[in-house]
């Protein structure tokens, strides 16, 4: 008699039916804010910095809707289709039309190659193994693009991933970049991405190493000006240490030539723009850039968690008479969170960014000024869970910002903003 209830339970679970089970994932943030001087909330960022401290400092509605479905799963072989539509609007009105971006459309096949168990082959557009620092919303290794490849090959001691990715860069129809007789509007680029992840170091954490090589693809009628490098590479080494119920990541990156430039992240960085009235181009594509980041999320006590980041980036591209974007960017910040309960917390975010321009950057654009931005935010937050990563979250915030040299708004280098914001991911 004991069997029957279980039989019913097993059968209920096994014979369950559901119409078209589609997985729905995504991200969304939205809200309202204002400046204490009147007018809309102003997002504060140091001029020339690659990112900004985001808490209480985001002024747009941004969303990503991902619909995915497992199309096949048998004997460990699995096919999964994923999509992602993203949009961003000003959050100024009810009706804000937008042209959504189709950011992902990909099929991933798992365990399809008998000799490579656990490996995944894929083709399509996708977010490709992105690495970011959440507190400043900075994606320092992001080669997301249309492409294809194989991921997660177990080498014993490391997992290898190889991908071919597309980079296309606009020239803005600039004949100084394109061939001298016809103005090229864009250049197709190819990016080869090779990564070795999950290199375990015992108690010393784990390591991920990667190399990206990308090259513009010239044609008979579309050639680069000889002053522009046609290719470049980026090297990344990332060390992850699990500490204090969280992690610390230490990252070293070096990029050369066509992949170097401010905020480089593993793709071709484009051709810069014509700066000022002189019509010079502020980026020549040859030279290098490097960066060091230390960031993480840790639990300081059962009630306190913290995000933090320290970052230094320097670009050093050749002048070649065009001027450059060369600058140094230094950033340091923390976001502690005190948890009153599983659903309520108080957050503070303190961030400091400093940008120093190179002389060659002032040649390209004389209005450039060294500047540093200090930003402090206090937020009361209600979130679904006790983690600093728990979402959705509703928050009320006050943000103070001060730029050392540049007026932020309303003839003032200081600014106070406040508002309400929601953030969700699922």
């Amino acid at each position: 008699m004991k069997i029957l209830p279980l039989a019913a339970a097993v059968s209920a679970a096994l014979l369950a039916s559901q119409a078209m089970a589609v997985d729905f994932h995504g991200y969304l943030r939205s809200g309202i804010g204002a400046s204490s001087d009147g007018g809309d909330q102003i997002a504060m960022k140091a001029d020339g910095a690659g990112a900004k401290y985001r808490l209480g400092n985001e002024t747009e509605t941004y969303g990503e809707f991902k619909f995915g479905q497992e199309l096949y799963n048998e004997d460990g072989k699995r096919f999964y289709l994923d999509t992602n539509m993203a949009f961003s609007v000003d959050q100024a009105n009810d009706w804000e039309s937008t042209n959504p971006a189709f950011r992902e459309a990909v099929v991933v096949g798992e365990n399809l190659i008998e000799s490579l168990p656990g490996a995944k082959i894929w083709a399509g557009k996708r977010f490709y193994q992105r690495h970011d620092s959440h507190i400043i919303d900075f994606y320092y290794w992001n080669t997301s693009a249309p492409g294809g490849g194989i991921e997660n090959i177990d080498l014993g001691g490391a997992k290898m991933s190889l991908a071919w990715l597309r980079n296309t860069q606009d020239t803005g129809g600039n004949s100084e970049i394109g061939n001298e007789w016809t103005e090229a509007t864009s250049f197709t680029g190819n990016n080869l991405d090779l990564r070795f992840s999950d290199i375990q170091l015992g108690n010393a954490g784990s390591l991920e190493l990667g190399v990206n090589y990308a090259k513009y693809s010239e044609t008979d009628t579309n050639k680069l000006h000889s002053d522009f490098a046609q290719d470049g590479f980026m090297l990344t080494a990332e060390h992850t240490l699990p500490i204090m119920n969280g992690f610390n990541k230490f990252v070293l990156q070096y990029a050369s030539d066509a992949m170097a430039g401010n905020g480089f992240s593993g793709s071709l960085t484009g051709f810069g723009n014509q700066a000022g009235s002189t019509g010079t181009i502020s980026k020549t594509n040859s030279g290098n850039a490097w960066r060091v980041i230390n960031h993480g999320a840790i639990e300081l006590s059962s009630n306190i968690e913290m995000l933090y980041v320290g970052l230094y980036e320097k670009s050093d591209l050749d002048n070649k008479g065009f001027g450059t974007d060369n600058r140094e960017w230094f950033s340091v910040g923390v976001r502690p969170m005190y948890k009153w309960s599983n659903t309520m917390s108080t957050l503070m975010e303190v961030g400091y960014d400093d940008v120093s321009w190179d002389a060659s950057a002032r040649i390209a654009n004389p209005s450039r000024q060294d500047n540093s931005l200090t930003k402090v935010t206090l937020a009361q937050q209600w979130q679904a869970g006790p983690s600093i990563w728990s979402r959705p979250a509703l928050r009320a915030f006050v943000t103070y910002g001060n730029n050392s040299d540049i007026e932020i708004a309303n003839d003032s280098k200081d600014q106070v903003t406040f508002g309400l914001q929601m953030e969700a991911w699922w």
Partner: protein
Amino acid sequence: MKKSMLSLALIGLLGLPASIVTAQTYSVANEQAIHLGSDQATLEYDSDIARMALHSVANERAIHLGSDQATLVFDRDTASMALPLGASRYQVVQIPQGQYQVNIRADIYKSVFAPTVYVIDAQGQILQTYSQQQLSLKPATAMSPDQLQLTFVVDSQQGAQALIIATSAAQLLATTEIEHPARQLAKARSNQPPNIPNLFIQHVATGEVQIRLSKMETHTQPAAPILVTSTATARDAAQNHQVSLSAEPTAAKPLLAESEAMYNQAINKAVANKDHELALKLMLEATEHGSTSARATYLEALQNL
């Protein structure tokens, strides 16, 4: 016709084994922890006294679910008593007349109250015990945090009178392994998850448990089987749809005794290996080919798991 129905049913099942495996991966970590304290699981336990206690408890303090759903709180004011799997704070829920699917969920935050459920009859005798090994882990979604879940069926016609919800001594020594929220976030956003270990959530003696009773209507045909691709949908479907045991398929001709034995052996082996997909397929195939014992073998193997 029957064949195509069966294959459709199989397609419907494809998504499920992965979820079962996931649940087991988590429980394996816990099982080891349980063994550490397993000597406590068989503590001196005077069954007569306990039965009397259970009986009186069932009659006096039982919660009658008005809305089929309730939050059971286990705090300093909650009574406790010695139970077969260890002393614990407990709550009693009355089972109404009929067959019910019971869903029990415990939200996982910094800690969790890991439920153990005793099904008792009118005499206070324990008919069935569900504890750590029967729990499954449901990862967090936008709508809910990580949860320990337990689903089973009770039938008042088979004597089930009440449920005692408590925790066990072994569970209090165990932990629940969940994926680090930083990794969960990374996956939701298609980022590379940080290479960090899972969290081990402490089991505690106080907390909350959600319970829901859903009346089962037996012998109604389920809707046409449709592709189920994820744990959550399979589970939701199991919770939301009334499903029944279908009638035993009749075979054209009986199976050779040797073939039948082979099938049963294979079913037992698959269940033992926790390859539920294979076990179920073998059972269905054997039954289709005329085995009269495959279904019983399958269910018994599951029962003994």
